[in-house]
């Protein structure tokens, strides 16, 4: 057996690092090395495979305003973490942290949704040591 590109330890750490999405490449479309934060009001929440989708109007922590398109992991994976179709409702004021889209569009993959009442929903976990 040859493991030519990475050592075995790195291989198994990579297994644990990121539970990426279903059909399209997370690694290509999102920056898995960075977490950004956006605060605002939910306009829409869809909870369908292969990915859920949140549209949020607000501003990022560094002041960029607009409507963000925020993708989730597969709803099947999230249902086992306590998410449902009613977890997020239009009009909810939330803070969403996630992995920004490569290319600079107002899009991200969700890591965590935080509600004013302290409730939290966890999406894709960042790998250890990721900048937040």
């Amino acid at each position, binding site marked *: 057996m*040859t493991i030519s590109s990475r050592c075995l330890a790195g291989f198994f*750490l990579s*297994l644990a690092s990121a539970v*990426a999405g279903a059909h399209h*490449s997370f690694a290509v479309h999102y920056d898995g090395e960075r977490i950004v934060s956006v605060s605002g009001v939910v306009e829409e929440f869809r909870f369908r*495979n292969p990915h859920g*989708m949140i549209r949020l109007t607000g501003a990022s922590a560094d002041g960029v305003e607009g409507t963000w398109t925020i993708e989730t992991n597969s709803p099947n994976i999230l249902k086992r973490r306590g998410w449902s179709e009613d977890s997020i409702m239009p009009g909810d004021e939330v803070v969403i942290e996630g992995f920004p889209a490569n290319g600079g569009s107002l899009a991200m993959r969700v890591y965590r949704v935080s509600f004013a009442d302290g409730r939290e929903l966890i999406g894709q976990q960042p790998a250890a040591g990721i900048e937040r």
Partner: protein
Amino acid sequence: MRRPGLAALCLLAPALMPLASPAQPEDFRERWSGFWTVRFERDVSGAALLEQLPEDAVLVDDAGGGELAAGEFSGLALSESALASARNYDYSAELLPENACRAPSVAFYMQAPFPMEIYPGRDLIVFKMEYFDLYRVIFMDGRAHPADAPHSLSGHSVGRWEGETLVVDTTHIAPGTFMNNGFDHSPNLHLTERFELSDDGSILRLTQVYEDPETFAGRAARYMSWSKRPGEYVLPYDCDPNYGG
């Protein structure tokens, strides 16, 4: 000439019929059946299975939801045509509704981070995959791959027991992504799998070995594992191409 009696025929019958699997492990139906969820192992639990991989196999490090970046192929030597296709791959097309629910072949879906159910029978073993609501059928009755079988995402699989190890040979796999980064396998991909249970039956482990001379040199391999969770079921996937609105 004396004809054999009914009792003798009954005794001979198992030898005259195609044997489903002459060495099925004891209690295999109970031990293998049920819901299996993907393990994300920091420390590999199946080192013994990995040791059985061919010396020249290149381990592809994307199983369990890990992903290879654009242009990374885990050290596999791609053919010129496969490399050219990968370089010209249009990632933006993945996001189009017409492609959103395009399911991968068994060359990629077994390593996805979704659970599965296994239904083991004497002549068939069925895998019900949560990912894209896919199914696998493993024929255990000794048949060969039919030359005229159609290609499909799950291909045509025949299995046999080697002691406690389930060995599955799959051909007729419809072309599809191999690494989710523009590298597609050909319709001539040959997949050999070795499934093993831990001694206590709580962990299922798998190594896959792929050969596809049209798209890469030598052999590629993957390792993955699942934990048994009694009483749980896979959920419908029901892919919606308009998921993003």
